[in-house]
């Protein structure tokens, strides 16, 4: 996704003006808020799962043949597939069967290998999680401090340089920066392995993950930097920051307890966007570094039209995104008392 401009990237919670006057209301606004968010997340998940399921129906060619894949399309085999997938039932009934099975952990059989989809996914999810987590932590460690620094040095050389690097990071596809890293650190300098996930040893795995994690972190850092800088700038410009300084609160304390405290909210609500970048980046990085993770599985399955696996991975990615957004939504009341006390919607 593209980054939104600072002015519009904020969530509705932060943009709603606080209602003047005492706003403590009867009931539990927090519980109502949590229930609303949870319901929205479940609804969203249903919509996405429907879309994912529809992929199969919309895929070109005969469904049964698609599902049969490379196996010989004897009439018996086709009939077996038809009944196994309830292909003669109406679309929504098919969806219902599929969803019920998915909820029980049965996502069907890979067309390509004949193995259960859950197994293929389970084999690869570990590596992908390691990669994503590593990239995310690196991006956090770089993006937030440098974004804050750029905001504090607004308009000066530091700001321009940091911002410029951020834009390059944002504009560099993970494969391009990945190949550059491979060229510099694996081929020229031979410090780190170029491709693959290593032979399984922890240390070796770590060594193999360094370059992919950095490549992944680069694009996410650009985004975090932009979000952080905009959020911190807005807080620095706020009246309450000047007022805190004016009554003698030490600048260090103003920065930590006023500015960063206020900037945390828009950064946290940008988490969904960050995750979207992270997921997309993972696919690209795994392709670039020949890492056998979920992203690689997805691309291979797409190439071989292995629809059940594609569905599983897409559903997994969507669930991850929705869950993270939900967690952030549920955590925002801890940051923002206006939601806690029902001050806004």
């Amino acid at each position, binding site marked *: 996704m593209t980054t939104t401009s600072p002015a519009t990237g904020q969530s509705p919670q932060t943009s709603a003006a*606080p*209602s*003047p*006057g*005492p*706003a*403590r209301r009867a009931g539990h606004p927090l519980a109502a808020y949590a229930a609303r968010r949870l319901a929205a997340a479940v609804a969203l998940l249903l919509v996405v799962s429907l879309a994912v399921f529809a992929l199969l129906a919309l895929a070109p060619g005969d469904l049964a043949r698609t599902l049969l894949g490379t196996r010989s399309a004897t009439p018996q085999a086709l009939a077996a597939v038809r009944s196994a997938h309830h292909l003669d039932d109406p679309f929504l009934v098919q969806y219902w069967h599929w969803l019920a099975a998915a909820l029980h952990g049965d996502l069907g059989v890979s067309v390509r290998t004949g193995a259960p989809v859950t197994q293929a996914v389970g084999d690869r999810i570990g590596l992908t999680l390691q990669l994503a987590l590593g990239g995310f932590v690196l991006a956090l460690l770089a993006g937030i401090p440098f974004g804050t620094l750029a905001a*504090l040095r*607004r*308009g000066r050389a530091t700001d321009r340089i940091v911002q410029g690097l951020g834009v390059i990071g944002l504009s560099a596809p993970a494969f391009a920066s990945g190949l550059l890293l491979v060229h510099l650190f694996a081929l020229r300098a031979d410090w780190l392995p170029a491709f693959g996930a290593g032979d399984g040893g922890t240390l070796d795995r770590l060594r193999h993950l360094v370059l992919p994690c950095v490549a992944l972190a680069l694009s996410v850092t650009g985004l975090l930097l932009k979000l952080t800088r905009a959020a911190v700038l807005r807080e*620095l410009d*706020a*009246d*309450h*920051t*000047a*007022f*805190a*300084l*004016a*009554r*003698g*609160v*030490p*600048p260090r*304390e*103003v*920065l930590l*307890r*006023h500015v960063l*405290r*206020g900037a945390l*909210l828009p950064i946290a609500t940008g988490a969904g966007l960050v995750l979207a970048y992270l997921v997309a980046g993972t696919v690209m990085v795994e392709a670039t570094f020949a890492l056998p993770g979920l992203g690689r599985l997805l691309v291979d399955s797409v190439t071989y039209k292995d629809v059940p696996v594609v569905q599983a991975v897409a559903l997994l990615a969507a669930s991850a995104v929705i869950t993270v957004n939900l967690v952030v939504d549920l955590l925002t009341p801890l*940051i*923002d*008392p*206006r939601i806690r*006390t029902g*001050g806004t919607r």
Partner: protein
Amino acid sequence: MTAAAPKPAPSRPLLAVRALRLETASVPPRPLVHGLDLDVQPGESVGIVGESGSGKSLTARAVAALLPGTVRAFGSVVADGREIIDSRSGRPGGLYGRAPEGHRGRTVSLLMQDPFTMLHPLRTCGRQIADGIRAGAPGTSRRGAALAVTERLAEVGLAPGTADRYPHELSGGMRQRAALAAALAPGPRLLIADEPTTAVDAHHQGEVLALIRRLQQARGMGLLLITHDLRVAFSACDRLYVMYAGTMLESGPARDIETHPAHPYTAALLAAEPSVRERYETLPATRPAAGPAAPATGCPFAARCAWAEADCRTAEPVPHPVGDSTGPGGRLTACRRMPAVAADVAAATRRTVAVTVSERTARPLLQVRGARKSYGGHEVLHGVDLEVPEGGAVGLVGESGSGKSTLARLVTGLEQLDGGRIVIAPDAAREDTGGRDTEPLLLAPGRPARGSRLALASAVQIVFQDPYSSLNPVHTVGSALREAAASPAARRRGDSTTTPVPTAEELLESVGLPAAYAARRPAALSGGERQRVAIARALAVRPRLLVCDESVSALDVSVQAQILTLLARLRQELGLSLLLVTHDLAVARQATDQLYVMHRGRIVERGRTDRVLDHPEAPYTRQLLAALPGSPALPGDSGTSRRTEG
């Protein structure tokens, strides 16, 4: 003519500003404040008065060592014996700007304008006050700070429980009190208050000022009050500095300045200020600034001054004593023609009290009967009656949230009635010309048909408050006026009037602007000029009733006087009726014949403007009059503590 300074000048002032010069950090630098001298003695209350752009707020920021990074400061600011301006870099500000240890907080604290943005939304009031307490006394224990927070809250009349509240849980008035408690928490020796009453409801302004004054006296603290409002300054300050376009034009004891201004600008400012007690024939307004930019040399006021000579435009103004007063606290004026022209200035700015208008017996143009309006199940108008006579000027006053703007919008068709009706009488001139609209226009609850809406729009037009958003920034003045003159409302009006459609140039001329302004975009106009264009746009329809919704309240007082004079002239020339919605009783007194006082969605008093204001009957009207700054009946401590419950 110098009254005794309120206190004998002690040896060391609390604040001594010498030759303070502020300019932008751009290339080339643009001057913002030119060589300002200013003193505040311990315990003294000093005001800086100026219209927008006078540099008064920047001066306050400079003293608080809180200048934005885009401004450089030169000269000297000594607070409590310490210099805070590093004249080598000219940079006293910035988040990590070098202010001497304890300058911000223990020596100087700044209370800002807007209670809605001044407090951190994510932190409780108690924590924000405790911040300040620790800034004043580092190392205060948690328990000690908590006790002190309760004390500070009590001082401003807030309950101890307020400490656990977040700002959004408090009303605007309570927030301003909590902010005041936070500003005073470090125990400053000088409190700078930058327009502390501007964002507060008129009703509470007197209260907030009285509270600041009381705390100042109780603490023996110096006060530097920044305001655009002369009434506020006179009621709260011992001594005043008058600034204009970054230059100090006059200073001296407040009472002296009020009675004997020693600069043509101050005299004009005083003359432009309407009064709640009298109505004047006209408010003698200075000529509007010619072109937006102040001249680079000479007296900045010269271009608008009737007494300016050639020298005024070339020689820098130098403050010199008025009469025989010398020394600190004495009177200074920067007018080189003083005292030679003093008598002339006094004569030219003398105002004649208008003779009481005779009762009008014109038939009503607009009748509102039992108007009701709700938003989201909450009724804001509870059956309101209002009448505007043909050619009359009616005022509608009340505090914000009283429903007065809603009523104005109903009359204009921007909102729809939920109950009651609005009747607009047919144009009397109609029968002769045989045009349309021989029947009265009746608006009932619900959305009216397009025909009715257009008929209403052709009779009633509105001018809003904020001149900066009244005009579309991408359209030129000329195209905005031409669009209005060709609008459906104007075409509809054409069916029932013989007045020809005015051209953009004619419209500009009628509101006192040069025709060349048609080619300009709003960004090249000053606030007053934009408001004139907004009036011209309304006039393009040739309406019979002009609704002014707080149309002069965002303007500087001299511009306000010009617009009020313009409105009076338009009424006379065009036979226009006026419905003036305002929170300002003095403006209502000056510009209207009939007055309606509104409170919580009801009309609580109505009658001739002079009678209502001189002999108010409704308790609420009395309360409004008593809350005015400088009113003899300022609500005392008992009045303030009544609203302490959190």
